Each structure stands twice: as structure tokens, then as C-alpha cells.
């Protein structure tokens, strides 16, 4: 079982790098959706006793992260009529390498720090931090609004992984609340993206600098 969980974490990390190295936004949406499904399923493997609330929150997370949000994003993408991130701040290959380096760095640091959590999820903390940082890299290096939303989603996934540590402590209501927050924010961002597209006739967030003083 332990091995299997670690495999899942490694898949998540690889998906991160894929997301960094891909220019087709549709593909990235799919990658993030897959990551979401894995994340949703993770608690079922980590916990020894599967309870009804755990099942509910897990299923909700899978549906939301794996299907609903990607569908919203795809619709936004169709409305915006763009396909790829043309010229990111850092090129695709360099950002993939950079992401790999960050991941390695996080693993190195976390190997130096002693933690008290169970040994079967030893990859949990480094994976979570690596995912958060890669979310940040996506947010910083991409100019298209939709790509930035994807960066935000990856970042959120990282936070979600971290919250698995506390899965026993967090009541289901809080977890559901978090999911609802995510859903609403993506929903709103998609609408805003649409409006940005209409106002600037592009999704390039560099145009937003005309709003500054």
C-alpha cells in the first residue's frame, strides 16, 4: 500500500512538470484534471478506515477537480478562441528544467527537516510544497489569463495535498467549504477571463498594466 501511495505522489510530480512543459492550454487543463482526480482519490488510500464523510468529500473532490472545473475552463477556452500560450516569460523547456530543480530542492530541504508524520506518507510534504511552487511558477511565467488560472489550480492542488496531513482533524464541513470556495473562484475567474477577452480583445494580462496609476 505504501508503495502505491508513493507512486501516486510521483505521478503528481510528473504531471506538474508536464503542465510546465506543455504549450497547448487544453492539454494543461487535462493534466490538471487528472491531477485533481488522483488527489481526490488519495485520502481513500491513506486512511485505513474509510468512513462515509471521507467518501463523500473524496467523491466531491474528484467530481469537482476532475470534471466540473475542467469543463468550465474548457468552455472559457472555447469562448476565448485561443489554443496555446505563445510566448511565456520563460520558455517551455527552461521552465520545465526550473520546475525540476525546484522539486529537487524541496526534496533536499525536506530530507534535512525531521517531521513527526507517519512514514507511509513521507513524500507528502515535499510533493505538496513542490506543487505549490510549480503553481507559482506557472502563475508568474504565463501571460494568458487562462494559463494563470491553471497555475492557480495547481497551487491549490498543492495546498490540498498539504491538508491531507490534517485529514482527521479537519471536519468535513470545512473541507466542503474549501471545495466550494475553489469552485466559486474558478467560476468567477472564468467569467472575468471572458470579460478581459472582450475588453482587450486578448487574454494577455500584460494589457492590464494600462490600469495602473
Amino acid at each position, binding site marked *: 500500500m505504501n508503495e502505491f501511495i508513493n507512486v501516486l505522489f510521483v505521478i503528481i510530480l510528473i504531471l506538474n512538470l508536464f503542465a510546465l512543459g506543455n504549450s497547448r492550454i487544453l492539454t494543461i487543463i487535462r493534466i490538471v484534471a487528472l491531477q485533481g482526480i488522483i488527489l481526490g482519490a488519495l485520502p481513500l488510500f491513506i486512511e485505513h478506515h474509510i468512513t462515509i464523510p471521507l467518501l463523500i468529500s473524496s467523491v466531491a473532490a474528484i467530481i469537482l477537480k476532475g470534471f466540473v472545473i475542467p469543463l468550465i475552463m474548457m468552455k472559457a477556452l472555447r469562448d476565448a478562441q485561443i489554443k496555446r500560450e505563445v510566448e511565456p*516569460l520563460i520558455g517551455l523547456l527552461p521552465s520545465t528544467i526550473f520546475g525540476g530543480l525546484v522539486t529537487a530542492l524541496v526534496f533536499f530541504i525536506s530530507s534535512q527537516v525531521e517531521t513527526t508524520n507517519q512514514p507511509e506518507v513521507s513524500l507528502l510534504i515535499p510533493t505538496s510544497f513542490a506543487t505549490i*511552487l510549480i503553481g*507559482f511558477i506557472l*502563475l*508568474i*511565467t*504565463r*501571460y494568458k489569463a487562462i494559463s*494563470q488560472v491553471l497555475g492557480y489550480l495547481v497551487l491549490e492542488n498543492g495546498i490540498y495535498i498539504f491538508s491531507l496531513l490534517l485529514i482527521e482533524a479537519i471536519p468535513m464541513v470545512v473541507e466542503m467549504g474549501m471545495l466550494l470556495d475553489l469552485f466559486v473562484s474558478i467560476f468567477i475567474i472564468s467569467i472575468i477571463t471572458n470579460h478581459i477577452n472582450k475588453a482587450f480583445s486578448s487574454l494577455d*494580462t*500584460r494589457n*492590464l*498594466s*494600462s*490600469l*495602473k*496609476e
Partner: protein
Amino acid sequence: MIMIFLILSGLSILFISGVPALFFSSSSEKGHYVTVFLVVLGSITGCIGTAFSFATDIPPTLIISWTIPLGNFAVAVDKLSAFFLIPVFIIPALGSIYSLGYWKQKEHTANGQKLGFFFGTLAGSMALIVIAHDGILFLIAWESMALSAFFCLTTEDHKKEIRDAGFVYFVCTHIGTLILFIMFILWNSTTGSFILTQTQTLSKQTTGIIFIFAFIGFSFKAGFIPFHVWLPDAHANAPSHVSAVMSAVVLKMGIYGIIRFSGLLMVSEPWWGIVLLCVGAITGLSGIVFAFSQTDFKRILAYSSIENIGIIGMGIGLALLGRSYAKPELVILGMGGAFFHVLNHSFFKALLFFNSGAVIHATGTQNIELMGGLAKKMPFSAFMFIIGAVAISALPPLNGFVSEWLLYLGFFKSIEPSTTSNITLIALAAVVLAMIGTLALATFVKMYSIVFLGSPRSEMKNHSHAPALSMKIPMFVLAGFCIITGILPVLVTPLLDGAISAWTAYNPDSLVISKLIPLHFITATGLLLIAIVIIIIVLYKKASTPYKTIKGITWDCGYTKPTPRMQYTGTSFAQIITQLFSFILLPKISKTSQLQHFPEKTHFHYTVADLILSRLVYPVLYFIRKLFFRMYIFQQGQPNLYVLYIIVMVLLLFIFGGIGVDL
């Protein structure tokens, strides 16, 4: 207990007085009448409660615990509070009546209801400040007053200069409040609670620090120089009845704070009094010098308010010194003069501001250089102005004289042979007070002669009309108060004695004002003066009846082509004295440099800006702003960059958290 409930219900009615009007159409006068009715009702209720609380010796206290963290809803009405409740309940009610004619809802559909609403909350929160017995409640009421006053004075917020004046006021009042926060935190940490009761166990250092914070914090509201920077613009740009309330009552809340806290802190040192005496003297003198040099009707009155605040400050300083050196006469005369002047100033300054509203309403300008000859068109205003001017210049037989007389007597008491030598220097303050009085007289002579005498200096809006009845009544009432309290100060002195005894327990001989000074002498002299004036008028009329009166142009004097421009202007009238004081006024003069042999077109321009605001506050703020312009490089407008800032910040926090640095 009954008086507390009366006062509380009065102030609650004041608080909500503007609410019903919001439901009426914005172009109908009915709502306005309802507002005025409620304000008057609330004020009368409050006045009855105040009158009752003068009659009891034990201050009634009401403490209700509430769900707001910290503090209680605690109110107490001792005689000090009751004394300050008098102007708080009287002036806004008169101002509200005045607004019926001055700020007609029909003519001000956009902001009349808003003004009515905030005018009510302003009056209500001031009443709450005065009776608050708990630091938190005090701060809540204080903030509520500051905000209400802000919205009142920015009534015409579509004008840029009014927004600017409002902004300066807003910044100043919040700096003051911030300092009061510090003061109350110190208070809480040293006394252990927010309840405002007298403290006898604190050390001198602690009380000294609390006193300094209280003095600076309250000075921002009272308008002591150099904390007055908001005051002239705010008073000049607000509607006149708001200016009247601001000057007559809101400033007094600052004075109330200083008096209240200097009373609560029982342990004091002589330097407290010296600070107040010096700041008061500087404020009074420079206030009146600035007033003299202004040409805007309401700015003159605003600077004159600063001057009067200075006089009150000198009185408080004298009383504090008296307390430190165990001289009950100084306490009684200083505090008595200060209290009396608080009351008097709220009467005559409100009268003058109401009057200024009537004049400005009629002429359409605030610049006195454009006025002239109004005494013929507006005899009522001219007469009311004379009463206000005589009172504010401290001339007998009106009330301003009595309060300043108390102060003079107090200052002279300090050089009596029996006193120790270290306080004889206080007597110098009498000299300053005399200078202030003289300059005040000069200022109001200038105003009266420029505004009401001579002939019109410009094509004024040609409806120079008599003010409406609703504007006359408040002025008439206030003029009546000025005359009555001036001739019969015996009516007021028991209230003063009560307030002094509530302020400090230190009065071993249980002295009262009427024992120290012959009040009936003032009454007799006042009546005699009035009689003499009446006799002169009667004799003059009698002597002049056999002759025919020919009416001509003012300053006609046999000149063939007189024009109004030949008259003295306000600036030229003031020139001698403004030149004397040019070292603090720093006037900006622009004129044609050389006069040619043949007359050419020439110009002369003379402006006096506020010393502290234009030479100190603005330059410093502009410099700081320039520094902060460099921060603009961080504002690139790119979301990516902002995310980068976040991650840098997060990483920094991690690093500092990791190595255990306390941020």
C-alpha cells in the same frame, strides 16, 4: 437618575433627528420641519435633564455592561459635564432652526437631507462625549462626532475646495484620535480599567505622559496652534450653521477633553500649567493676528475662534498652576474664566457665524473686500454684528468682558505681595491678554467698517435682503444670551462654581466666584453704560431733529466724482498692524515693481496663507510624497509580478521563521 434618562433620551432624539426626513421627497420642506422639530425636542429634553443635574450634588452614574469587547456603557453627569451640555444642547438647536431659512430643502435637494442627518448625529455624539464615563464609549462618541462633522462640512462635496478642506480636516482629526487611542491605552494600563475616575495613586511621570498625549490629541480638535491647520479652511467652507456649531461646540469638545483629563489626573506638576499658558498665549496672539490679516468673512471668524481657544487655554493654564502651587484663588479665577469663556464664545461666535451666513446669503460672496454699505440694506444684521463684535472684543457690558475680566483678575492675583515669587511671571499673561483684546477689537472694527459701512465695493448680487425670520430668531436669542450673561453674571457663576468643584477637589476654603469679585459692580456698570448710550442717542436725536438731513454718498466730502474704490479696503485698513506682524504672517505681495512718470496699469495683490499649513505641513508632506514616488517602480501593473512579490514574501517569512527571527 431621572436626569440621566432625560439627557440620554434627548441625545437619542438628536441622533435620529435626520432619519424621518429621509423618507420625504427631497424637494419638499416637510421633512426639514420634522428634523428641526426633533432637534428642538431633543435639545429641550436634554436641557431639562441638564438643569436637573445642576441641582444634585452627587453625580448620577449609569453603568450597563454591553457585548462590545472592552469597557462598559457607562455615563455620568457631574457638573462639569452638565456645564458643557449647555452649549451642546442650545447651539445645534438654534442652528437647526436657522437652517430652515438658510439651507432650504427646496433649494438644496441634493444635500439638504444628508446635512440634516449628520447635523443630528453631530449634536447627539457631542452630548454623548460629554457624559461618557468610559474610555471606549468616549472614543466611539468622539469618532462619531468627527465623522459627522466631516460629512456636515463637506455638504457641498461637488466643489473641489470643499473636498480639499474636508480632507485636511479628516487627516487632522484622525491623527488626533490616534493620539487619544494611545492615551486611553496608557490610561487602561496604568489605572487598570477604562472607567474615567479620578486617580490619586499614579506617579508623576505616568500622569505627565498621559497628560501630554491628552493635550496633543485634544488640541487637534480644539485648534491650539500648531494643531489648528484644518480649522480655517473647514470653517470657511462649511455651511454657516455648521461653521457655527463647529466653532461654538465642536472645538469646545477638545477643550472639554483637556479639562476633563487634567481634572482626572490628580497628580500634576507646574509645567502642565506653564505649557497650557504658553501655548494658549501663542495661540491667542497669532490667531487674532491672522484673523486681522484675512479678507474672507468666515476665515476671519475661524481665526478668531483660534484666538478664543487660546484665551480659554490660558485660563486652564492659570488654574493648573494654581492647583500646583496650592492657590485656590488662581484655580477659581482661571477655571472660572475659562468655563465662562467657553460658554460666551459659543454664544457670540455662533451669533457671528449665523450673521455671516445671512450676509453671505445676501451678497453671494465671502470676500469682505467686495462688500460695503450693508448697514443700510441689512440693519438687523448690522445690529447683531455689533452685539457679537462687542462681546467678542471683550468690551463691557457684554459677556465677553466678564470672562476675560475674571482671567485678568486671576493673572493679577499672582503678583499680590503674599504670593511667592516663582509665579509672578504669570502676570505677563495679562499683557498678552490685553494685546489679544486690542487686536480683536481692531479686527472687528475692520470687519464692521468694511462690510457694513461705506458704500458697496462691487456689483453685489442685487438681492441684499433682510434674513428670513427663522434666521433672525436664533441670532436674536443668542444676542439676548450675550446681553443677559454680560449684565447679570450672577446667573452663570453658580454653574461655574459647580463645574470647578467637579473639576478638582482642591478648594480648601470652598471659595466661590461671587466671593472673590464684586459681581453686582459689573451689573451696575453695565446698566450705567447702557443708560449712557441711550441718553446720548436720545440727546442726539433731539438735537438733530430741527435740522434737515440730506442723504449723500458715503465719503462724498465735496469731491466731484467719488467712486467706491476710493474707500479703504480691508487690507489697507489692516496694513499697519499686518506690517508689524509680518514676521509671522509672511504675506505674499505681488505688485508692479516701479511706478512710471505717467500712470500705467498697475496691480497689487496681498495674500496671507496659514503659516503652519503652507510653510510647514505642506512642504513636509510634499517631500514625503516625493520619497514615496520611488515606490512606483514596484507598481508595474502586471499580475505575474504581483504573484512574484507574494512568493518572495512567503519565502522570506519561511526563512525568517526557520531561523527564528521575531518579525
